[in-house]
């Protein structure tokens, strides 16, 4: 079931539609980074305000009426700015994927904003909007459809394969030439 160790695809894969597992991993990483940075940032902000005001401030002093809009604003900026600039949030960059227009062009600011705004819609009805990533021919979620975007691999698997083969060294390669990493089809 799980891919074998050191399974590096043979082809480049750059520009190919990203699959569900990679996108789920990127989403999980982004949510973790988003929340972690929000908590750290808010704590730093409260410390700074408290330092200036000379009092001890806490998140409980403001309540959800303050923290939820702040989190929403932070989430919008967290996704919108990276998608507009490079197409990749930090989580997406780690797993090697990026957002592009449906025709493969880079995402502009307007489409990036539309994608961020419609992103929560995919969570409705038990995440039904994400089903398109799994079963769709273009692996597009509901927010991708709304924003006219797609998610593709930005990771050059062929370069990684060359690096992996190089790491094995000439002695090991000579001893077991047929033991090269399995060639998953691109």
């Amino acid at each position: 079931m799980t891919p074998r160790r050191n399974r590096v695809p043979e082809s480049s894969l750059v520009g190919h539609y990203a699959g569900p597992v990679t996108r789920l991993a990127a989403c999980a990483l982004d949510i973790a980074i988003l929340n972690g940075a929000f908590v750290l940032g808010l704590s730093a902000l409260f410390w700074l305000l408290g330092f200036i005001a000379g009092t001890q401030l806490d998140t409980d002093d403001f309540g959800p009426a303050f923290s939820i809009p702040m989190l929403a604003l932070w989430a919008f900026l967290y996704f919108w700015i990276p998608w507009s600039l490079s197409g990749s949030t930090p989580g997406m960059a780690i797993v090697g994927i990026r957002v592009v227009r449906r025709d493969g062009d880079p995402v502009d600011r307007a489409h990036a904003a539309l994608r961020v705004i419609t992103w929560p819609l995919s969570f409705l009805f038990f995440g039904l909007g994400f089903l398109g990533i799994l079963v769709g021919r273009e692996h597009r979620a509901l927010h991708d459809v709304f924003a006219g975007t797609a998610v593709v691999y930005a990771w050059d698997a062929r370069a990684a394969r060359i690096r992996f083969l190089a790491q094995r060294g000439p002695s090991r390669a000579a001893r077991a030439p047929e033991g090269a990493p399995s060639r998953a089809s691109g």
Partner: protein
Amino acid sequence: MPARASKNGPVSNNRRRPVDRLLDLVPMDAVVRHVDVNELIERVDVQRIVDRVDVNAIVERVDIQRIIDRVDVNALMTRIDVNEIIDRVDINAIIERVDVEDVVARTEIGQVVVASTTGMATRGLDFVRAQGVGLDQWCNRWVDRILRRRPGDAPAGPGITIGAPGPEAAP
């Protein structure tokens, strides 16, 4: 009785027939002068003659080594225009036949590449991404199987068909 030479070669007098004796009187050189040799050759079936020749037997009798020993290879090489030969070689076709991955894996080039381009973080990312891609492909295969779709039906990416290489240079 000893053989005696005639115009047509030595023939024993005992075995000489009247025709031979008649031919002795004919000046063969004069006759041959009137023969159109080219026309005669055209009437000869050379292929039949060649077919009857055992070329292998002839070749076996040839001392190739002696011939090679007599050839001045250096002089021969100086007469060869190497550039002209190279110009006629399709280098791209040769390069396409080279297994670059095998070359990298078997030579020190790989070590240089590793030393200059990769660190622990890159290797770690490559590993994680490879696992993700492998799982993606596994999921896609199963979804295609369940939905009874042929794997090659779906586009590989925006503007990329299955089997075609993707755009190079990752961002």
